[in-house]
């Protein structure tokens, strides 16, 4: 059994950072994990996607055609990828940058998060990624919040460690939102 | 040896006692000897490593009694870089011809010089590809007939001879760059002193040292040994002036 998640958005939204963080947290929990980024010739502003797979067993492919979950950060990513989510899978998306849900071909679970607004309330627009990752972790339980928090310390370069408290706040905020949403549904 | 005799000339100990494969009148033998004398004078035969190139001088290991590695065509300065980085206290020299150094190996020589690699480069310029049969070289003179410029080198189509000593002197990493010739006894002596200086600078870790030697290739020039020797002074030196183009150890 594996948990696999595909994440997509604009370059600069911190997609690759949370992919790294999730895989790192899983490894801290002594699970196996792969992180596989897709990359283009440009360093900034293009599309950013990655796949993270977490498993207790040996992981084969680091990519899946039909991932169990997707974290979609904008309309472009939504339009392009949502119909590849495995039947019965989960789509967590940033409702601030997604206006419209395409017509879906399969049954999936959806969780809309106003991540831009929440990040702005936290005082840092760049925390969108952590809000969404927090929600994903709380919703699926694939890794614990504690592991994510420890992972931040391993993942972030020294010069960015001062952002750890803000990132933790955003992870908690996203997790809280997911729990409340589960309570409502 | 009789009591009243003394040795005034002998084979340098860095050269092996073997017959030469070079053509009559070829200057490789002279330059080999000058290099060997420099190695002997500095007493570094045991730590000298030669980098052979592709061309007539490929058989460096047949003549020099030292360790030698053979480089692909033009790559001797890169091979020398690798060797020197592993054995920084060794004395590394490349020995290259004009096709090897100034055509296919242009990038390697320029960048080795520019990095200031602590190696010595001996460059024999005889205005032609010797081993492959007298084709046009980057140093072939304007109008010179070769097997691939049968109507004479046309500078409008084939470009100009490259003056390597001047070119390398412009690079920040070059410590020493000079051009000498070996067509007269006096110039042979001068060439010997210059080559010694280029090796000495390496031993003293003063930087990249380059010596271009003008030499003759009678076979491919279609000349007798004497005619070819004369051509070096008559035709080559006008285009390739002798001199020291850079010497960071010179005062003033």
């Amino acid at each position: 059994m594996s948990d696999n998640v595909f994440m997509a958005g604009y370059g600069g939204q911190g997609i690759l950072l949370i992919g790294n963080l999730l895989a790192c947290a899983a490894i801290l929990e002594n699970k196996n994990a792969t992180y596989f980024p897709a990359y283009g010739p440009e360093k900034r502003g293009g599309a950013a996607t990655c796949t993270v797979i977490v498993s207790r067993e040996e992981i084969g492919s680091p990519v899946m055609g039909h991932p169990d979950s997707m974290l979609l950060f904008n309309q472009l990513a939504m339009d392009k990828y949502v119909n590849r989510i495995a039947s019965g899978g989960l789509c967590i998306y940033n409702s601030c940058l997604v206006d419209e849900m395409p017509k879906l071909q399969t049954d999936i679970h959806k969780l809309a998060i106003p991540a831009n607004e929440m990040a702005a309330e936290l005082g840092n627009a760049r925390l969108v990624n952590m809000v969404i990752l927090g929600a994903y972790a709380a919703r699926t339980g694939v890794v614990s919040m504690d592991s994510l928090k420890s992972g931040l310390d391993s993942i972030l370069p020294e010069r960015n460690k001062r952002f750890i408290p803000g990132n933790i706040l955003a992870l908690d905020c996203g997790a809280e939102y997911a729990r409340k949403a589960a309570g409502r549904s | 040896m009789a009591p009243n005799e003394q040795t005034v000339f002998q084979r340098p100990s860095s050269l092996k006692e073997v017959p030469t494969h070079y053509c009559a009148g070829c200057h490789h033998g002279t330059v080999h000897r000058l290099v060997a004398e420099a190695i002997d004078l500095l007493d570094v035969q045991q730590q000298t490593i030669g980098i052979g190139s592709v061309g007539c001088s490929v058989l460096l290991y047949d003549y020099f009694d030292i360790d030698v590695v053979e480089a692909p065509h033009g790559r001797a300065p890169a091979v020398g870089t690798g060797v020197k980085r592993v054995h920084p206290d060794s004395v590394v020299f490349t020995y290259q011809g004009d096709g090897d150094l100034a055509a296919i190996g242009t990038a390697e020589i320029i960048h080795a010089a520019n990095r200031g690699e602590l190696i010595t480069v001996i460059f024999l310029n005889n205005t032609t590809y010797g081993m492959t049969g007298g084709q046009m070289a980057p140093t072939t003179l304007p109008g010179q007939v070769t097997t691939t410029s049968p109507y004479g080198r046309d500078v409008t189509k084939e470009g100009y001879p490259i003056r390597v000593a001047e070119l390398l002197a412009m690079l920040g990493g070059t410590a020493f760059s000079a051009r000498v010739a070996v067509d007269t006894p006096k110039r042979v002596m001068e060439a010997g002193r210059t080559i010694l200086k280029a090796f000495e600078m390496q031993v003293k870790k003063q930087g990249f040292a380059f010596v271009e030697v003008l030499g003759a290739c009678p076979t491919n020039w279609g000349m007798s040994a004497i005619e070819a020797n004369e051509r070096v002074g008559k035709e080559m030196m006008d285009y390739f002036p002798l001199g020291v183009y850079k010497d960071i150890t010179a005062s003033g």
Partner: protein
Amino acid sequence: MKKRLFVKGNEAVAMGALEAGCRYYFGYPITPQNDIPEFMSREMPKVGGTFVQAESEVAAINMVLGAGAAGGRVMTSSSGPGISLKAEGMSFMAGSEVPAVIVNIQRPGPGLGGIDVSQADYFQAVKGAGHGGYHLIVLAPHSVQELYDLTMLAFDLADRYRIPAMVLGDAMLGQMKEALVPHAHQLPEDLPPKDWAITGKGGRAKGNAVKSLYLADGELEAHNWHLHAKYAQLKEKETRFEAVGLEDAELILTAFGGAARIVKTAIAMARKEGLKVGLIRPITVFPFPAEIYRTATAKTPKVLCVELNNGQMVEDVRLSVDPMADVRFYGRPGGTGSLPDPEEIFAQICKHYKD
């Protein structure tokens, strides 16, 4: 529990090299392997090693030739277009028996091609990219851990057999991150001394010559038979492979490197559906593990070879199998949007399993 690091494949190569005692690195930037020179430029000075960013791949491989001939543990890394430029140097190194490690983190081609995942350089790696008819040892890792472990092994094999060794990775393995258990390298005690290396004569009676030019009567032929004997010895002693589920297999899948990762997931899907599918994964692609193919296909004749190219290793598979075997191929050459997923390979398994 052993310490587990979370490491990018390219960096695992560099870490393995340093652990194996590599102290000389010469290279030139090219995507998707730039983490290797970047890591080396940062870490080599800390261990007293040498990092040189060469002016070209051509210069880099020749610096490797020089350092290897001088007896150093030396490495370079690149990707397809750069490996083409290194072909000349690799031929010279094979001919003059210079040990070194060359890493190819493959990208799709031909020409500039692309920068995504591909196994387009199998032929180039195992058939000898340069002139003259020679082989390198070619190791094909399929995980970050193996990138680390097999890079170490590559140094030892190169030194043992006096031969250049290649680590054949790809953009998937190079760019992905997963767990790595670091461990101390155990230098084999029986490695032959490098008494052939050029070090300066240092009092030796005869100078050493590291060379590939042989002009005397019969000399070159003798040298080539000597190299050939070495390749035969490699085939006998150094083939490595992973075989899974061959006991009950009705269909054998075979793949190397990154493709094997995708195939492993597809096989798990197939097994879940009750399909009896096995796997042969060559770890050395030269020497190619021919024997396991012969014995396995004598029992299970149907083989599906999956590659991230249009069919390269499949030629070696066909040369290795039992004469009655039925070898099929599925592959995609790579490029943006051209990485097959496990579901796609699973569909191929279902198709070939039936007919």
